[in-house]
């Protein structure tokens, strides 16, 4: 009976039917009685003193209900290292600095009011280049730190350092070494649903925030901390998500507009909605963190890596969100992608007057992966080894413990590399090379079994079964489109022995859930799935306890009725001991049965009959079927040396690409793209492929087309026309390969797969382009202009 009924099956997303009928309520669609509309006035300069703000004219505009500036609200610092205030006073440090906010009865009036607010500025010197910003005498972006102590440098007090082994030893053991410099730029997450929230206080100043966050509990925590500093200590906060129109990292931090929305709601005593325009989405929301890498690697004569040394420079922008923590994730590929004994990685974050950054799918991994996989290719060439063979020599393997102390429990990397080779016809393509055509590959490692970046990496879940056999699952994560309602209902159906259609899910509500560290880091299926399986065991136990109590009665009652109808009926002589012990029974596909005789003609009973009979049966015997489970895996926080096994398991994968480059136009055509991923076990294969396809497309954009153009701190292409995302017309012929080694720690063997597809895509393309035309583009995106320039330089 090991065959699964629902796990491993492509169950359709029926649970989300509202999304195809227009009935799903996104923040855009949410309207509360008496709701006002908030708009934000941003800075006109990248660095300036605010001399004066005159809001008198705006205040007189009919329909305006409140105008706030930094001078009207408590001067409280927020953010990851508390280096900014909600509304800025005295100094602005970037174009997106929030200078004032308006609440009005319509978005149009709020917008008009913004135009009537007069702000006088005195322009200050600026710095936009992180290298320049590090130099002595560079204009200071911040004069003081969070505690008011004067600052002398733009370098952040976040010295990211990772060392393992000894670089010099590695160097001495090297037969070949290479040095490369690569860089990546800003890209926007481009959620189709714009950012926004509705803040609503009750008369006791308790807040309900209708939101889109993927960290409901951490978001609530940040708000509680903010409240404690603005005189609302102890007030209750409930974060409730609307349907979320994509996240890709944007909803990991509690953004400034959310605090502004709360302040406007407090001031007006009305619900207030802030909804971003696409333009704001581009210039007022933190994008992916750019980075510059200098990477050096060596290998011995046999091609075994001897050392990897890398220095990274991150343009932090004017303030600090999660972008500054991307080096903590960069350390994973730097230390643990392929076997490398000696590693040194240092990253410096520098303030500039540019936009600041945060998370995006893959966190720092795509950036660091571009560095590592570029270097892997140049080193393979230096050593005269085929790039695929070179990667196979150095591949990670099950049972490894990496220099970062990551424990590789299961690893399908070898199979991934070989699948890519086979499906690309790699050896033949390398041998019979056609002009301007080339193949390239890149691999990845990523957390796939949670990521202990907070003291608790747990996920809490509650499951109840009512007298109708309806199963309500209250889980603590969020869905931003990845399909968790379907996946979790499959897991619950399998583990509890019900059908997927019996299951309803409540997600994204702090008031109806236990703690969860957040739906990020490709962790949700793994964490919620494991919590669900454990919770289902408890619920099942309760039902089976009830079954042994009521099944004999129900069966005997049935016999009595039969006898009444048919006096000749002879009651069979049954061995009721088969159903006398809950441990000897099981539930599958809604049927309760004895394990020793699953198809017993009398002892197989619809579970709904049991709950209907056993739940509400009078004083003393009535009960409810409900259980909770908190799954917090035995993983480690990174220690002071940034080492520790922070995830229960790790995902591996390889992307292989064949390209053709038009040497006249510089245009790149992807002829084939193989995305091979070790997913542990696919709970829902088609849903999983959706994650791979989507991630690959974003990865191709990262490699070839996408770039936020920032000139002197200003975003020059804040719209979908000038920012080039891929459309359906940009046909990328993707062949996914799903490798399923199964992982002991995963729910039914599954690993996380939300981010991996994106990670190695851009470097695989870059490596294929090099193979095709012999020039290596080391700064993303690889545009036709860069290719033509490089080809010209080569000649």
């Amino acid at each position, binding site marked *: 009976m090991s065959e699964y009924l629902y796990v491993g099956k492509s169950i359709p997303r029926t649970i989300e039917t509202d999304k195809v009928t227009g009935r799903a309520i996104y923040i855009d669609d949410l309207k509360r009685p008496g709701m006002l509309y908030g708009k934000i006035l941003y800075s006109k300069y990248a660095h300036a003193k605010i001399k004066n703000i005159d809001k008198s004219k705006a205040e007189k505009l009919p329909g305006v209900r409140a105008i706030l500036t930094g001078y009207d609200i408590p001067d409280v610092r927020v953010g990851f290292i508390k280096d900014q205030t909600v509304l800025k006073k005295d100094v602005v440090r970037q174009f997106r600095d929030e200078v004032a906010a308006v609440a009005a009865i319509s978005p149009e009036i709020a917008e008009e009011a913004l135009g009537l607010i007069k702000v006088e500025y005195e322009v200050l010197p600026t710095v936009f280049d992180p290298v320049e910003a590090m130099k002595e005498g560079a204009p200071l972006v911040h004069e003081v730190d969070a505690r008011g102590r004067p600052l002398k440098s733009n370098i952040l007090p976040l010295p990211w350092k990772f060392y393992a082994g000894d670089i010099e030893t590695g160097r001495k053991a090297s037969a070949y070494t290479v040095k490369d410099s690569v860089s990546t730029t800003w890209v926007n997450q481009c959620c189709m649903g714009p950012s926004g929230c509705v803040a609503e206080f009750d008369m006791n100043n308790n807040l309900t925030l209708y939101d889109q966050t993927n960290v409901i509990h951490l978001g609530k925590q940040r708000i509680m901390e903010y409240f404690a500093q603005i005189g609302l200590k102890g007030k209750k906060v409930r974060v409730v998500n609307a349907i979320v129109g994509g996240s890709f990292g944007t909803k990991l931090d509690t953004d400034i507009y959310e605090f502004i929305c709360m302040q406007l709601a407090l001031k007006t005593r009305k619900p207030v909605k802030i909804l971003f325009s696409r333009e704001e989405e581009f210039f007022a929301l933190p994008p992916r963190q750019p980075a510059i890498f200098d990477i050096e690697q060596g290998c011995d004569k046999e091609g075994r890596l001897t050392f990897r040394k890398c220095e990274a420079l991150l343009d932090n922008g004017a303030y600090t969100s999660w972008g500054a923590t991307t080096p903590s994730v960069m350390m994973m590929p730097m230390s643990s992608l392929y076997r490398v004994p000696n590693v040194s990685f240092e990253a410096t974050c520098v303030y500039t007057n540019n936009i600041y950054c945060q998370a995006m799918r893959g966190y720092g991994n795509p950036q660091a992966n571009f560095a590592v996989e570029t270097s892997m290719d140049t080193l393979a060439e230096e050593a005269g080894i085929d790039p695929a063979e070179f990667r196979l020599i150095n591949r990670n393997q099950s049972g490894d413990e990496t220099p970062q102390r990551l424990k590789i429990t299961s690893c399908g990397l070898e199979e991934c590399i070989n699948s890519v080779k086979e499906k690309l016809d790699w050896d033949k393509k390398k041998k019979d090379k056609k002009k301007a055509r080339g193949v390239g590959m890149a691999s990845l490692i990523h957390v796939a079994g949670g990521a202990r970046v907070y003291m608790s990496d747990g996920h809490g879940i509650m499951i109840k079964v009512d007298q109708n056999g309806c199963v309500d699952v209250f889980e603590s994560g969020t869905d931003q489109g990845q399909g968790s309602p379907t996946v979790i209902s499959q897991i619950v159906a399998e583990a509890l022995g019900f059908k997927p259609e019996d299951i309803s899910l409540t997600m994204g509500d702090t008031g109806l859930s236990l703690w969860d560290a957040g739906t990020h880091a490709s962790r949700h299926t793994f964490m919620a799935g494991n919590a669900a399986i454990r919770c289902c065991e408890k619920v099942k136990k309760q039902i089976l306890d009830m079954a042994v109590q009521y099944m004999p009665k129900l069966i005997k009652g049935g016999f009595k009725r039969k006898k009444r109808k048919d006096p000749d009926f002879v009651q069979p002589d049954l061995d009721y001991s088969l159903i006398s012990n809950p441990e000897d029974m099981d539930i599958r596909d809604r049927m309760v049965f004895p394990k020793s005789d699953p198809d017993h003609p009398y002892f197989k009973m619809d579970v709904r009959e049991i709950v209907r009979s056993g739940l509400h049966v009078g004083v003393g015997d009535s009960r409810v079927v409900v259980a909770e489970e908190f799954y917090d895996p035995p993983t480690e926080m990174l220690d002071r040396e940034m080492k520790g096994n922070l995830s229960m398991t790790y995902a591996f994968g390889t992307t292989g690409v064949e390209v053709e480059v038009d040497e006249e136009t510089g245009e790149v055509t992807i002829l084939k793209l193989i995305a091979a991923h070790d997913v542990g076990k696919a709970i829902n294969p088609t849903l999983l492929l959706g994650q791979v396809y989507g991630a690959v*497309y974003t990865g191709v954009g990262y490699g070839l087309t996408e770039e936020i153009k920032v000139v002197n701190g200003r975003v020059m292409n804040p719209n979908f026309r000038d920012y080039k995302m891929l459309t359906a017309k940009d046909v990328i012929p993707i062949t996914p390969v799903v490798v399923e080694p199964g992982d002991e720690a995963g729910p039914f063997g599954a690993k996380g797969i939300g981010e991996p597809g994106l990670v190695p895509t851009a470097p695989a393309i870059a490596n294929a382009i090099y193979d095709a035309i012999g020039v290596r583009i080391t700064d993303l995106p690889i545009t036709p202009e860069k290719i033509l320039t490089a080809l010209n330089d080569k000649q």
Partner: protein
Amino acid sequence: MKRSVLLTVNGERHEVLIEPNLTLLELLREGLNLKGAKEACGIGACGACTVLMDEKPVNACIVLALEAEGKEIETIEGLVKGNDLHPLQRSFIDHYSFQCGFCTPGTIMTAKAFLHRNPKPSRDEVKNGIAGNICRCTGYENIVDGILNAAKEI
């Protein structure tokens, strides 16, 4: 000065008084409370606001409501007949053609008009047909599957 517009939306006639600069999307979403069509770009570059105007797909965010005078508008809300989903809606569920769902109503409306013009399209023709509808989640593959399979039923 407000102007009067007479239009049909999902088979129902409406006479509305509107500001001349109101977009069709604003009229549908705010005036008629039909929230299915979404604004994602505001410049007609992504297709999330697609509705049908006399059976032709338009980006409602850049069409003035005044232009809808005398026209028949169809939105995602009009596709459900009684308890039955439109074959495209059914197929989008069965083929995982959406993730976050924000672009979905617009894409389905584009697809409906497209299949009307081209009932038996090839895979590439479908990709061209929905090139104006941006989706960040799916990588389009499953959307194309959804449309191709719906084509068999329509």
